[in-house]
């Protein structure tokens, strides 16, 4: 949420179908406050408020100008950050206006900068060899027999005749990006009881993405005529797997433009506060690649091989002239839009037994659409080795909610809320919430809540057209029958949307206590439990494999025709889908404490600790329950400890953030905990000028080694959990006028 309102999702979905709000669209300089509400809240906010809500409140009610300039870098690497922002505001009797301008850019943290975490061959470090079988040189089929390129170096050749390739070196651990944004907020009092408001924001982001040169496999159907001048076999052959390294690494340029406008009126009528507003949000993303960026077309490549111009043998580097003829330009375009209208009132509803019962109620109407269109060259099957997503979807939805706050006694307050949502695609859902707050004594407060919630299927999960993804598997059926493909290899999975998906349902409760014996000290804990049913998931790769890949004629696990004398052909593609398949239950404890200490002439110190302990994280799929607690990417402990010292014009901070250990993906070892230390200090010279310096990851801590899952994590650490950035030193100047 931004300023309490739902924001539209990104035009591109993550992991093919997961819609998300892109937090790269919100400049830090624009943020007044971040509230992380850690409680089920579908009864008030509707879909997705299962595990909580993050509300970003933008800076407002500013008077004057604040300018921030900031530069920092991870020395010895290509990574740096430059930020410049301007916040301007003015207030008058009749209203206020504020404008925020922000610029951010960062350099690239490359595979080379990552050292041992920059290679896919992690076997020297105790990990897996995740190098690809699409090699340079590659392998061929001569008279239907798999034949490795004679020039394949010995350390790249596998027992089954593949020539491995390390794509790690072409990876960008953190790609360069640039973001420019502007936000304007305006309030104008029309009368004493009526205010008009307007919020506008635009954001333009660019970044890069990319990886190794184009990989080609059997599916590409490439052949080399016997007459080719470089053909060492002297007869017509098929290309098995090969990679056009001489055409260069694949690179995407990504550009996204996001716009949001909210206009409304708020006022007071008979002691009731009311508000009506309309919101329009739009996000457009474009991903492009051109001829200099490694995008090879298979039909062009085949033509150049046929004429003898392109040499696919012995890791030959073909001339630029030929490369220009086998490469192409690509465009992917995504759009997402949201249009929403809402109205709400709040105030004193009635009095029962001398106690005032407060009420809030509201109604919403929303239309959303997404489209994600890949280049038609993908759809014609001419581009290999890169997933192309194609998705279309739209829906509208209306909702109404009501919430009561009932002071049952002087120190016991009950809250009742309920919300009805109706969606044009999957139907309607009603979600209640009941909560209490009890002042046990002056120092001790207890609280608790129970609610149900839901999560609508993402538009991409419903409207996804068949989209490819590659993942690693061992083809154990073929290995057992024919003694080939016994190693971990990457295979193509195709996902398609499912229009019959239902919403995910959830039930959440939490109970907690806060003890605040003084102004200086408080401590609170909350126990939470979230159960989700009807969870939308893609079918599990290994389950699909086990069930279908033992059949040469399966339509789910599609195999190529077997070679002479063999039982199974190599796997061509495995068809996967999204289904309401799973359920999961999460239980944990949050602890939060604050302590401030006066040091007289040495200033004041404030300590804070936010600690989350994961008691259990159980997922159930196909009747099988797996406890992920402490398993791969599910550490039991996470905490953040902050210390802030202030004296006159000096301030200093030390922040420790800790992510606990967890089991590695293959469960044979433990991935170590990571403790990062961030420090900063500042001095205010005068009313106008403040200087800050800081160091993030002071001890230049590496990410913890992990063998990884062979899917997202191929480079020896858990990318989704651990920070790859080394010691980062920054200087910031703040000026106020």
């Amino acid at each position, binding site marked *: *949420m931004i300023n309490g309102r*739902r*924001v539209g*999702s990104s035009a*591109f979905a993550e992991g093919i179908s*997961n*819609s*998300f*709000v*892109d*937090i*790269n669209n919100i400049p*830090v300089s624009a*943020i007044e*406050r*971040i*509230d*992380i*509400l*850690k*409680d089920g809240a*579908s009864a008030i906010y509707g*879909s*997705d408020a299962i*595990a909580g809500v*993050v509300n970003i409140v933008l800076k407002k009610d500013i008077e004057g100008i604040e300018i921030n300039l900031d530069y920092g870098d991870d020395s010895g690497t290509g990574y740096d*950050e430059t930020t410049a922002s301007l916040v301007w505001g003015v207030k008058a009797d009749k209203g206020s206006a504020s404008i925020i301008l922000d610029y951010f850019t960062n350099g690239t943290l490359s595979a080379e900068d990552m050292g041992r975490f920059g290679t896919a061959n992690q076997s020297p470090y105790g990990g897996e060899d995740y190098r690809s079988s699409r090699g340079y040189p590659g392998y061929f089929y001569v008279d239907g027999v798999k034949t490795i390129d004679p020039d394949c170096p010995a350390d790249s050749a596998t027992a089954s005749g593949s020539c491995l390739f390390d794509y790690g070196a072409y*990876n960008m651990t953190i*790609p360069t990006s640039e973001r420019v944004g502007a936000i304007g907020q305006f309030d104008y009092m029309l009368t004493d009881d009526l205010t008009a408001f307007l919020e506008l924001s635009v954001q333009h*982001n*660019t970044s890069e*993405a*990319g*990886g190794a040169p184009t990989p080609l496999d059997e599916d590409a159907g490439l052949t080399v005529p016997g007459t080719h001048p470089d053909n060492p076999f002297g007869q017509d052959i098929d290309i098995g797997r090969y990679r056009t390294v001489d055409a260069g690494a*694949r690179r995407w340029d990504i550009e*996204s433009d996001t716009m949001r406008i909210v206009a409304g009126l708020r006022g007071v009528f008979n002691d009731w506060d009311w508000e009506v507003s309309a919101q329009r949000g739009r996000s457009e993303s474009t991903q492009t690649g051109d001829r200099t960026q490694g995008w090879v077309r298979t039909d062009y490549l085949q033509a150049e091989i046929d004429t003898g111009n392109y040499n696919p043998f012995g890791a030959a580097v073909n001339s630029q002239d030929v490369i220009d003829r086998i490469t192409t330009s690509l465009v992917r375009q995504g759009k997402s839009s949201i249009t929403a209208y809402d109205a709400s009132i709040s105030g004193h509803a009635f009095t029962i037994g001398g106690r005032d019962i407060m009420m809030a109620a509201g109604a919403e109407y929303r239309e959303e659409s997404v489209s994600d269109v890949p280049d038609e060259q993908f759809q014609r099957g001419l581009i290999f*080795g*890169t997933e192309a997503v194609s998705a279309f979807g739209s829906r509208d939805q209306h909702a109404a909610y009501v919430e009561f706050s009932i002071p049952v006694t002087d120190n016991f307050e009950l809250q009742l809320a309920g919300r009805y949502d109706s969606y044009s695609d999957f139907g309607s859902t009603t979600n209640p919430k009941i909560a209490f*707050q009890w002042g046990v004594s002056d120092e001790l407060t207890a*609280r608790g*809540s129970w609610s149900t919630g839901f*999560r609508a299927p993402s538009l991409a999960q419903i409207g996804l057209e068949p*989209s490819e993804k590659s993942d690693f598997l061992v083809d154990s059926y073929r290995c057992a029958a024919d003694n080939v493909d016994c190693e971990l290899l990457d295979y193509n999975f195709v996902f398609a949307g499912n229009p019959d998906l239902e919403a995910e349902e959830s039930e959440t409760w939490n109970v*907690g206590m806060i003890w605040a014996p003084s102004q200086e000290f408080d401590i*609170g804990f909350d126990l*939470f439990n*979230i159960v989700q049913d009807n969870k939308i998931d893609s079918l599990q790769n290994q389950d699909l494999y086990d069930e279908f890949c033992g059949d040469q004629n399966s339509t789910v696990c599609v195999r190529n025709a077997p070679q002479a004398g063999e039982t199974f052909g190599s796997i061509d593609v495995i068809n996967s889908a999204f289904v309401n398949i799973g359920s999961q239950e999460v239980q*944990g404890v*949050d602890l939060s404490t604050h302590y401030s200490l006066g040091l007289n002439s040495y200033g004041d110190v404030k300590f804070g600790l936010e600690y989350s302990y994961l008691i259990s994280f159980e997922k159930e799929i196909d009747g099988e329950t797996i406890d992920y607690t402490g398993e791969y*990417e*599910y550490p039991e402990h*996470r*905490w953040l400890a902050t210390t802030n010292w202030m004296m006159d014009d000096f301030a200093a901070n030390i*922040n420790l953030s800790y992510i606990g250990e967890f089991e590695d993906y293959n469960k044979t070892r433990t991935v170590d905990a990571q403790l990062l230390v961030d420090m*900063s200090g500042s001095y205010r010279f005068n009313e106008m000028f403040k200087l800050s310096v800081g160091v*993030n990851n002071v001890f230049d801590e590496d990410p913890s080694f992990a063998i990884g899952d062979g899917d997202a994590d191929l480079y020896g650490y858990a*990318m*989704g959990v651990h*920070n790859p950035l080394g010691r980062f030193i*920054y200087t910031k100047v703040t000026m106020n006028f």
Partner: protein
Amino acid sequence: MKASSPVQSLNKDDIANMGFDNLQQLLERMPANGSGAFSTRGNSQDSTANGGASISLRGLGQMRHWY
């Protein structure tokens, strides 16, 4: 009307003290974040969310709407 709910609140001073100009890096340090968070550092030729970033409260999935 949310006094009965646990809320972690960071004001602009807390945010400045954390020392990040990038919301993703800031939220990543929060203990309530869990499995499923991602950022541009996962970007590749194959990533379908190139350029974007999100966090995942309690590891229950990316926030579609921050709700």
